[in-house]
């Protein structure tokens, strides 16, 4: 995965670093993060402050926003796009999908409607990304 431990020579003190690609926006900054005794002490390569936060989270608690679809009964489309209202732990993605696959909602669906209150026991809701009208 992206969290490779690499040895970097530059400036001596960057002896042990993690190399990461920030995924918070499409710029995809390459980060060099230095971890000492289980703590993040320095981040380089980030073009905005969010890069530091990302490095901290990605090294210790990686999370992702789940985007998927949920089956709709009686709608103009048979599925509605949905996303987790907040990022969820990365390792919960496939477990969350197990729940999503079992789910069917009735049309009409509103934007932002909660489709699943607590996805994969993360405490995060799954919400609709658009409206889906009912078939007349």
């Amino acid at each position, binding site marked *: *995965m*992206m969290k490779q431990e690499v040895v970097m020579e530059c400036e001596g003190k960057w002896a042990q670093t993690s190399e990461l*690609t*920030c*995924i*918070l*926006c*499409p710029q*995809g900054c*390459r980060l060099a993060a230095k971890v000492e005794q289980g703590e993040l002490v320095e981040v380089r390569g980030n073009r905005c402050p969010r890069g530091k936060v990302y490095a901290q989270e990605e090294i210790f608690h990686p999370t*992702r*926003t*789940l*985007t*998927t*679809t949920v*089956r709709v009964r009686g709608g103009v*489309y*048979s*599925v509605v*796009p*949905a*996303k987790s209202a907040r990022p969820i732990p*990365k390792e919960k*993605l*496939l477990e969350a*999908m197990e729940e999503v*696959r079992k789910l069917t909602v009735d049309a009409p669906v509103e*934007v932002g409607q909660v489709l699943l209150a607590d996805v994969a026991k993360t405490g995060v809701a799954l919400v609709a*990304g*658009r*409206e889906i009208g009912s078939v007349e």
Partner: protein
Amino acid sequence: MKREQVELVVIGGGPAGMAAALGAYEQGVRSIVILERDRELGGILQQCIHNGFGLHYFGEELTGPEYAGRFIRRVQDAGIRVLTNTMVLEVTEGRQVYAVNRVDGMTCFQAEAVVLAMGCRERTREAIAIAGTRPAGVFTAGTAQRYINMEGYLPGKQVLILGSGDIGLIMARRMTLEGAEVKGVLEIMPYSNGLNRNIVQCLDDFQIPLMLEHTVVEVHGRERIKGVTIARVDGAMQPIAGSERYLEVDTLLLSVGLIPENELTRGVGILMDLATGGAVVNQYRETRVSGVFACGNVLHVHDLVDYVTEEAILAGRGAAKWIAMRRGCRIEVESAHMGSNNVCDGEMGLALPCDEEMDANDYADGSGDLGVDLSKSSISEISGEVEAIAEMVVTASTNVRYVVPQRLVMPVEEDVEFYLRVIKPLERGEVVMRCGDEIVYRKKERCLRPAEMVKVRLRAGVCKGAVLTVTVEEVG
């Protein structure tokens, strides 16, 4: 056949078309119609259910449908007329737009301005000529995306993806989440053409291998695809004998490039840029046929919808300005102000009747003859009068695949934002713009990649002369 007079026809109701219509609306244009061939507005965003849209424009991360939804509401709130399930068949140089739908049959819209916003389509198996049988189960990635995300069908269970563009990467994750086994993503080039973040969160997160310098050399199966033969390629992108390997798959997705959908544009006789596959435009996104504008993926394929929106607003404002000028009434256009010496007989005066296509980048390769060519290309014959139009040619040079806009109407009174792509990836490079020998812009950029469009803002005051040359030079 129905006939209608409208001020502005926008062809395409995706992000570009909606933003262009809104851009014109904000400048006071009220007689607008958006023609959309799908059953609803939103375009390709409606099937792009992943997030990452809107970071530049809205400052927050949205999914495709959410981004589209915001613009759909704005279009509705403005009361802009939209005809869905409506296919445009032809556009003429005189800005007649022929469209057909089930309700009205055929309609001819006589428009004062037209914005082309038809988007792009995917290259197919035929475009890259893969050998083998012709079974079911070979899809473009975007088609599979629509099946899964809008129609609710999973196209297959054992998948190989050819092409590591963003759609390919995103579909690798999407099909994995839906329970399919994605055996790998093949890329013929030595680097991926997708965004870094997509390689991380779509492939690395799910341990999907990215096989660089690999391609599919044969498709197997009669009714349904049963497998593919893949091979490593050499520096000339030719399969290396002996490196072939068979993979059992029931689905092959192709993410092998996008083509601006310019059949209508060509029908008008608009000058095209072979490097972008779209029209040659000036800073207002006006094509070489007066009153016809282009924006979004039909002009050049973007990687971020936020930039599509920005560009389309410019096109919409340009169209509004043109409409106002034809009326002989001057309106102030906030950031799309046209120089008054470009006006002849109430026209913007950039008409260039042109039948042949030419590569805008080859256009100004020479130097000595350039002034002559340029004066020819910037003469507008309107009402029998010949008027010289001051215009600057923008050329993509060293390590620049293309630059948009390709022309600047002079004088340039507002800062101009250029979009460009590099030919080869550079870890560190410097974007340099020159008017003649004089350097008018230089900026160092990190991680320049062909897949990531570079945006450059040039101050209005520095644009002078006949040619602006754009290069990206390696920094040691």
